[in-house]
């Protein structure tokens, strides 16, 4: 074996073990690396309820109810399998709409999620308004977030 060959093998093997180690570590930490839990996670995995968590999903169609005080809003976070009712008091980001992604930070008590912070999650689609409308009309795409 030439010295260069030997160094190549050494570096190759070293890198391979590094990849294996990081894969194992990342898999082990899986639940701590997620930014939010989905309603399914909450219902099917035993997520501790009495600490602040983040839940994420879509704002359920037709679920937004604004209170008379003007700053309290009730809505449901859904992943189309389970939904969790949520309540929030405060200013909302522009992209907070029905059928649009949302991440809420707060606490789940007695089945109701009391959100302290609301973050809007936008999707990976970019297009002009006319295109979005025509796609919806032809039924090729259901689209998120009604305007």
């Amino acid at each position, binding site marked *: 074996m030439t010295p260069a060959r030997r160094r190549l093998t050494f570096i190759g093997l070293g890198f391979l073990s590094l990849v294996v180690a990081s894969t194992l570590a990342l898999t082990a930490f899986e639940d701590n690396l997620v930014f939010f839990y*989905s309603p399914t996670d909450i219902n099917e995995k035993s997520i501790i309820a009495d600490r602040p968590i983040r839940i*994420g999903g879509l704002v359920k169609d037709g679920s937004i109810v604004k209170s008379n005080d003007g700053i309290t809003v009730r809505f449901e976070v859904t992943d189309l399998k389970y939904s969790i009712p949520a309540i929030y008091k405060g200013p909302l980001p522009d992209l907070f709409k029905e059928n649009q*992604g949302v991440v809420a930070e707060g606490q789940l008590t007695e089945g109701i999620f009391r959100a302290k912070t609301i*973050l809007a999650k936008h999707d990976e689609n*970019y*297009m002009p308004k006319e295109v979005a409308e025509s796609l919806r009309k032809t039924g090729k*795409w259901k689209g998120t977030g009604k305007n």
Partner: protein
Amino acid sequence: MHKFANPAQFTRLANRVLPWTSFFAAICFIFGLYFSIFASPPDYQQGETVRIMYVHVPAAWMSLFTYTLMAVASASFLIWKHSLADIAARALAPVGASFTAITLITGALWGQPMWGTWWVWDARLTSVLILFFLYLGYMTLVNAFEDSEKGSKAGAVLALIGFVNIPIIKFSVDWWNTLHQPASLSRLDAPAIDPSMLVPLLLMALGFKLFLITILIIRMRTTLIEKRLQAKQLLKSG
């Protein structure tokens, strides 16, 4: 490949390539910016804010691409001891760090109006921040030794270890729940990006890539000249 490891060969090739890459980089930026700022439509949801994408996304791609080049150069320096590979890796680091900084800053400016926050510790944002520190760490490490050969070796090892982070950044949005949305371009089913927005994005991406090649050649050429000067001075004094 080994042919270009010769500095004289490299300089000859570099001098021939440089006018072209700088010219086309300028062309891409002029047209790319015109389309991004004036001639492309506002997004159906994000409105005018979407224009941040035309800088943010190419810068993010380049931050990964530059690191990948740096890791490849570091590996070939460690394996074949090409000094030109070391010069390339050292030349790439500050450029990559700048791309990453641009990504982080434009990302924050975009996150505030769209998500409602400048920063969150989700997997994508955090791994990109780590990338930024890897670049800084590399730059510090290669210059931390009296003997620059030692610095190059230590830096190259760090660059290779840090390369594990690159696939993590790329796939973070698929592996974990993140606030950051998944990739638009590697998706095959329509719609992800409308052609009217894709064209400026790709023009800008091409411009960024040509800019990297241009600046890399200039930086490497400067280092080579510097080394030749030092050698001459050593000869004179010795």
